[in-house]
């Protein structure tokens, strides 16, 4: 081959790299065999404590993933495929993504969905920018119940831009109508809400949305997919754009990623939507088929005027979610949501009996709720870890002043026996 190319040796191929450009150092270890790598990684994985019983949520949940789901996405034809720019050899990916988009619409009640964004936090940012583009206004009302992690992301992305953020408080667990209405005006682009909110409280935002629409502002709601098995959809409330974290739709926790950001909206906003969108069409033989559509919005065509810079999204995670939603299905999702609700309610009942501890009950919740402790929640969590429980998330981590509050999540995976032991252990720690 070298002879054919016309160079004497491999180094000849790199003649354009001048001596002064050679690496100043390249001090890397010798390569290992497959066995050595697997052994090393296995040992490292065992240094992570995944054996505590998790009551930890905060937007990311320990849900059961039916075996069929990872079994299907681990097929090489799905996970080693490329982005479907050549539709004739990518109908598997394209149809699966179309089914994903359809299922997200079914779940949220909205008209149109894209084919995924990176995660729930960046999806919220993209949706906010979409609302700003649509209205041409610059003020954003951000409810304090929206995930503090998401709010940090938005702050990073926008601090150099001239948008004004007004944050409204959570009162008795729910959004403050009074504060939102006071701030709503003709310069409000969007009101951002979350259901259930970060504290676990559920709400019906219909009244807020009507007030926002009356001044020409849009409303963006961030939602939790499993809760939609039982909760009123954001579409029914009148929301304009909906986003959320899709991790609970069949994706493992994976220490922070890869996750799944979904975004969906009313049909009139489809051209303002960022990211890839799969559309239905026909081929030269009149058969139904699927393609990437509305690409004129995207970076590879529009470049600096694109709706977003996103290129690689999380297709495989979206396909995984589509498969999860198919296997679990309409009936399974409802069943799953009911189990979450029941087990969380049972846990609330047990914890309510503990002296010195108060379960916050001022608003209804789904599978996550807030508990007030007699001491610093972080200390309680440390003690509970020693007893084999990830007891919850200390809210003081992101909400100064709330150091004694703990966010507790209960999913369908928690058995009665686990919840009983958890309550007993917690009682022992807060005595």
């Amino acid at each position, binding site marked *: 081959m070298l002879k054919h190319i016309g160079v004497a040796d491999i180094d000849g191929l790199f003649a354009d790299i001048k001596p002064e450009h050679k690496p100043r150092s390249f001090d890397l270890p010798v390569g290992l065999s497959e066995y050595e790598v697997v052994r090393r990684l296995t040992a490292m994985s065992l240094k992570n404590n995944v054996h505590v019983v998790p009551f930890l949520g905060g937007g990311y949940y320990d849900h059961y993933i039916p075996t069929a789901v990872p079994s299907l996405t681990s097929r090489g034809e799905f996970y080693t495929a490329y982005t479907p720019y050549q539709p004739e050899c990518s109908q598997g990916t394209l149809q699966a993504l179309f089914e994903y988009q359809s299922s997200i619409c079914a779940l949220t009640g909205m008209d149109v969905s894209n084919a995924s964004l990176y995660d729930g936090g960046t999806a919220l940012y993209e949706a906010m920018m979409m609302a700003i583009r649509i209205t041409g206004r610059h003020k954003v009302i951000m409810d304090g119940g929206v995930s503090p992690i998401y709010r940090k992301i938005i702050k990073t992305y926008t601090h150099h831009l001239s948008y004004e953020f007004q944050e409204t408080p959570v009162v008795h667990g729910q959004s403050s109508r009074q504060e939102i209405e006071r701030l709503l005006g003709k310069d409000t682009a969007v009101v951002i809400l979350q259901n259930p909110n970060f504290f676990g409280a559920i709400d019906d935002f219909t009244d807020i949305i009507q007030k926002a629409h009356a001044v020409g502002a849009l409303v963006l709601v961030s939602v939790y997919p499993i809760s939609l098995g039982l909760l009123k959809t954001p579409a029914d409330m009148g929301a304009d754009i909906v986003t959320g974290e899709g991790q609970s739709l069949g994706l493992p926790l994976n220490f922070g990623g890869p996750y799944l950001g979904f975004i969906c909206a009313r049909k009139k906003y489809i*051209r303002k939507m960022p990211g890839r969108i799969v559309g239905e069409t026909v081929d030269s033989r009149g058969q139904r088929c699927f393609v990437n559509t509305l*690409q*004129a*919005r995207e970076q590879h*065509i*529009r470049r600096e*005027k694109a709706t977003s810079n996103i290129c690689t999204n999380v297709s495989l995670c979206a396909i995984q979610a589509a498969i999860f939603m198919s296997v679990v299905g309409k009936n399974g999702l409802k069943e799953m949501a009911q189990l979450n609700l029941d087990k969380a309610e049972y846990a609330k009942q047990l914890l309510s009996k503990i002296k010195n501890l108060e379960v916050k009950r001022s608003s209804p919740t789904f599978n996550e709720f807030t508990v007030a402790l007699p001491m610093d929640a972080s200390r309680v969590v440390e003690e509970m870890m020693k007893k084999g429980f990830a007891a919850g998330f200390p809210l003081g981590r992101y909400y100064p002043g709330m150091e004694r509050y703990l966010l507790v999540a209960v999913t369908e995976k928690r058995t009665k026996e686990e919840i009983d032991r958890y309550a007993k252990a917690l009682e022992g720690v807060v005595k």
Partner: protein
Amino acid sequence: MEIEENFLYTKEHEWVSIEDNIATMGITDYAQGALGDVTYVELPEEELEVEQFEQFVSVESVKAASDIYAPMAGKVIEVNRKLEENPAMINKDCYGKGWIAKIDVRDMDESTNLMNADEYRNYLDSLAH
């Protein structure tokens, strides 16, 4: 490559026909050919005030999205709503039924910044090289 002899042209391939202070505009045959099948036209609102050469319309095809610029400054008094249902009209009849907007011209002198048919023809030739 079709060119209407009586129209005026911009470097960004818009055409304009001015009568009774009203400028009707669209995009040229060259532009519609470069874009390919038009799939969507983002029309401005009526009453919009525009400057000469300010972007005010966007035309999308499968492979591109083009900004369209006002050939003359003034107020947009009418837009071709038929393009919402039938964007392909821009490909089929770009100088006629594919017109995009009518502008109430503010300053007729600005037409000196535009090219006539011969000048546009020469301009297209220069682009080819």
